[in-house]
């Protein structure tokens, strides 16, 4: 997809003035947060589970090569095939080869952010293969030619009435006067449309929430069961997973699952937790004939051993964006690439370059709410600050900000001069505050006074008055 992160400010401006979007974003604020809080409160050991989850992933990231190779061996023991892909292009090529070898015309897809990352849908269409999204949210945005605005709720930027009009536009086989006012009616219609497509598809592609090294199993969690139909009905199942998804054992996955759904939607577990290991065995009643796993790096291994390694613990629950005031204000599309919100502000510079995604780690108040809710305890603000350091080192931040900061620091590092200047300046500034004790306009403070008044200083600085008090005290003692 076209990266629009460089125009983040313009994207945000547009988002803030998009009434439909603003209406839809209200759902993020009101829905996810309360549900998560309730689920967390109901589980006394939640904090301990977070620690365990973090420890598991940290261990994996220190020994990633060992676990990936162990996983590969188990997949092949089960009759599957593992493909290693370094880049998005390589992963797309492998998928296309598998599709061509099977004369695939349509491909059903479970929800997968990684297929967004490699821009799979556009690529398949250009190659004459029809991809069909089966997650309801993904299906809706595919109809609209959009990209997900949230990693677990791809269509969260839309309102129900918008979906209704899309369905009326596209589903022309249904009676025109049908009632689509209730979400259940929309769901039922999508289900009817999708049902036959599962049977018609030649290949099913899913992502993976976990890869299990000890068994060669891949696990997906869904709430709609679409993942199961995508991976069991077609003749070929392709799992596309990034390398950091591997965990040593089923027990490890079970531990992390206990924090995943609670953090994401406030459910104890997602409705479906689906395990798949290799193709159909002789004794299995159903399942695919071919089972492929594509292990994609796409820049992740370059984060290992750096200050950004911790971000690879991410299990894509979306809690960080659900709790982010900036995400609440502008929504996911403004971030301009696949992963929005705080995790996007860390991953995007890592995966597409900080020269393109430099705004994202800066567009944060560092309120720390993301880190406070992250089930994997990823220090998101700290990592955004690391990106700011990289930008500062490379002189990528805007000149105005750089010189403004330098000007301030020049004084801050010279206490005597700082005192003298502020002794002189603040009383004058105080006077200009007038009777109202605030400014509506002020030169060089446009960024502030455009939106809010600036409270005026009281007058003489604290340190000036403190010195007077000290002098008075000393005089009294003399």
């Amino acid at each position, binding site marked *: 997809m076209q990266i629009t992160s460089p125009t983040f400010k313009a994207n945000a401006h547009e988002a803030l003035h998009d009434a439909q979007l603003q209406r839809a974003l209200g759902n993020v604020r009101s829905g996810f947060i309360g549900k998560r809080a309730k689920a967390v409160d109901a589980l006394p050991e939640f904090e301990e589970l977070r620690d365990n989850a973090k420890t598991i992933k940290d261990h994996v990231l220190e020994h990633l090569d060992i676990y990936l190779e162990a996983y590969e061996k188990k997949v092949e023991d089960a009759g599957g095939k593992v493909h290693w892909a370094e880049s998005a292009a390589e992963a797309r090529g492998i998928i296309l080869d598998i599709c061509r070898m099977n004369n695939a015309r349509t491909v059903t897809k479970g929800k997968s952010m990684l297929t967004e990352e490699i821009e799979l849908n556009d690529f398949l269409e250009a190659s004459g293969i029809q991809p069909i999204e089966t997650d309801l949210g993904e299906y809706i945005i595919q109809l609209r030619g959009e990209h997900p605005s949230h990693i677990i709720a791809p269509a969260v930027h839309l309102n129900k009435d918008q979906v209704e009009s899309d369905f009326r536009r596209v589903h022309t086989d249904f009676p025109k006067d049908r009632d689509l006012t209730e979400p259940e009616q929309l769901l039922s219609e999508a289900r009817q449309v999708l049902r036959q497509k599962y049977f018609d598809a030649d290949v099913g592609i899913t992502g993976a929430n976990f890869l299990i090294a000890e068994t060669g199993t891949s696990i997906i969690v869904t709430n709609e069961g679409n993942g199961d139909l995508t991976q069991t009905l077609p003749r070929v199942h392709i799992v596309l997973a990034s390398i950091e998804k591997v965990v040593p054992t089923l027990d490890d996955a079970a531990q992390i699952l206990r924090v995943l759904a609670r953090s994401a939607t406030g459910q104890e577990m997602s409705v479906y937790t689906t395990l798949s290991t290799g193709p159909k065995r002789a004794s299995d009643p159903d399942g695919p004939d071919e089972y492929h796993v594509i292990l994609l790096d796409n820049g992740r291994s370059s984060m290992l051993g750096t200050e950004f390694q911790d971000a690879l613990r991410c299990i894509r629950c979306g809690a960080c964006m659900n709790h982010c005031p900036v995400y609440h204000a502008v929504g996911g599309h403004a971030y301009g690439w696949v992963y929005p919100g705080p995790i996007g502000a860390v991953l995007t510079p890592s995966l597409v370059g900080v020269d393109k995604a430099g705004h994202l780690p800066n567009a944060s108040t560092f309120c720390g709410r993301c880190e406070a809710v992250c089930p994997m305890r990823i220090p998101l603000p700290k990592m955004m600050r690391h*990106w700011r350091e990289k930008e500062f080192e490379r002189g990528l931040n805007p000149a105005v900000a750089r010189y403004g900061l330098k000007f301030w620091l020049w004084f801050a590092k010279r206490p005597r001069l700082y005192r003298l200047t502020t002794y002189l300046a603040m009383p004058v500034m105080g006077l200009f505050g007038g009777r109202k004790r605030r400014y509506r306009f002020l030169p060089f403070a446009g960024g502030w006074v455009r939106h809010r008044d600036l409270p005026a200083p009281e007058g003489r600085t604290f340190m000036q008055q403190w010195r007077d008090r000290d002098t008075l005290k000393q005089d009294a003692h003399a």
Partner: protein
Amino acid sequence: MTQAASPAPRVGLFVTCLVDLFRPSVGFAAVKLMEDAGCVVDAPAAQTCCGQPAYNSGDRDDTRAIAEATIEAFEEFDYVVAPSGSCAGMLKKHYPGLFKGDEAWEARARTFSDKVHELISFLTDVLGVTQVPAKAAGKVTYHDSCSGLRELGIHDQPRKLVASVKGLKLTEMADADVCCGFGGTFCVKYGEISNAIVEEKAANIAGSGADMLLASDLGCLMNMAGKLKRQGSNIEVRHVAEVLAGMTDQPPIGGK
């Protein structure tokens, strides 16, 4: 034999640049609260800013230079106290990390950061203050500033002391723990987004029915006061220390 009274704790007030320049009365309120609780307070002249603007802009070298100067300026004190969760968080949580790999300075920074406290939690958690003799009138609401809340765990302490002020009724706003959109340089670099966030906050403040807004960080207070005043609100905005110290002679932040 008479037992010597334990000497009064010597507190270095890190006044913070915003309080120093914009609202000295918060500094004097802090001094009064600590002196009333038996401390000897001084404000060393060598202090300027905690360095957070540089730190959060990615400028490690300048941050470290400022941190060294600040640590040196406060080395003689038993405690270092700031009337701000954000600056106290910087001094306490972030200074030691600036010196990674430099053992001598890292140790100095740790000794320093162990002594650092945010004002209100210092009063309650270290000095054991449970109430203040101040009086006021009206309904107040309290905004939790992010650094104080999430870096230092300050939530109940200010509420407890505010509840002890005679004549004051605390009424909670919705989402008191959600950011006000200030974020240091964020509020000018991403002014439009900051505005959307503070508009939400202002609506919650107004919705609480309070006639006074309190918080413990001047940056957040100036942001929220600026928005409320631009909207024509009559809600008075003050640093919580002013009310706790009974020092409300100054006009509120941003005026009436």
